[in-house]
């Protein structure tokens, strides 16, 4: 879990009281095999990996639990509440996840619509308030809406995670202005969650100044997940460094790079 660039060029990502050394967070869903997942996660350099909470299939002898494949001492497990459509459901899933005993962090999702998987803002704010009061470190998935992001911060979220575009769509960053505005106005870290499709999307997203990116399908659905994971790792760092470096101003006219004096006659 190291960055490619020298550490002096960037500072660690700090969420709540914890320091992370990769700004790329990855999911573990939808891989064609556990082996492909493990290789992609290794190539991504990610420290935080998300997992979902589901019933054990009691009629299968070959268990599909993720902990048979991922070493929880090596990765920081961030459980999600994916598939929850109400605040109450999300709270129940969060409590179950915490009882697994790894940590008190939760990636909160309250989905408002089955077709678009867009979040239910009211449900998110309510669940964040309840869970934060119970001591959870809530990282709240949300729309790219400034007011909802501000309300989530007020409700006690330790990080706010606006989408780049809908979950699993790979459409990239649809509204850079919104993401930039959210980052400028919030005190807590802003992690863009969902919608990134390829390395250039990740780079452009990081160039908006956000603190990190969480992605899953962009890796899992790539023809070569491990190679895409390596590309994403570099893209996240490239975008971050470009943001920190400060880009040159855009001009509508050309300006020569070479001296205009001293030309031979």
């Amino acid at each position: 879990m190291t960055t490619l660039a020298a550490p002096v060029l960037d500072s660690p990502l700090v969420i709540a009281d914890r320091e992370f050394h990769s700004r790329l967070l990855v999911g573990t869903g939808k891989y064609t095999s556990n082996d492909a997942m493990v290789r992609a996660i290794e190539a991504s350099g990610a420290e935080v990996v998300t997992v979902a909470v589901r019933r054990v299939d009691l009629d299968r002898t070959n268990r599909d639990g993720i902990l048979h494949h991922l070493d929880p001492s090596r990765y920081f497990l961030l459980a999600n509440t994916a598939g929850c459509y109400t605040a109450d459901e999300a709270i129940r899933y969060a409590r179950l996840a915490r009882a697994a005993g790894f940590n008190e962090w939760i990636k909160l999702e309250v989905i408002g619509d089955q077709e678009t998987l867009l979040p239910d803002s009211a449900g998110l704010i309510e669940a964040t308030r309840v869970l934060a009061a119970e001591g959870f470190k809530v990282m709240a998935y949300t729309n790219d809406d400034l007011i909802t992001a501000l309300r989530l911060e007020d409700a006690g979220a330790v990080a706010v995670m606006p989408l780049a575009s809908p979950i699993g769509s790979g459409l990239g960053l649809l509204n850079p202005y919104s993401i930039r505005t959210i980052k400028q106005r919030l005190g807590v870290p802003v992690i863009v969650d969902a919608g990134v499709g390829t390395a250039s999307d990740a780079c452009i997203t990081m160039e908006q100044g956000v603190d990190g990116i969480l992605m899953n399908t962009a890796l899992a659905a790539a023809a070569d997940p491990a190679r895409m994971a390596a590309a994403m790792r570099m893209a996240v760092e490239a975008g971050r460094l470009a943001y920190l470096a400060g880009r040159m101003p855009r001009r509508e006219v050309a300006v020569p790079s070479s001296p205009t004096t001293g030309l031979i006659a």
Partner: protein
Amino acid sequence: MPNARRSTIFPSMTPIAAASGSITPVVNGEPRSFPAGTTLGDLLRAFELDPRMVVVEHNRAILRDRAIYDSLALATGDAIEIVHFVGGG
């Protein structure tokens, strides 16, 4: 119950054999029969589950203390949810 799985601990128990002397808790949404006196610990062993790899909810209450599994006797109608971490984003 087409999915009923023969218990390795109670091989004679099938859902059809359920009668007096047995209990039928609802485990992950499905009624399943066990001998009366079966504890939660017995149930996990019957399904070959490592208690450290799962989280159990008993009648909507999360059992955070795994030490009580072997003393928690189950009853007909008890709702048991056994969950674990799977791949997700």
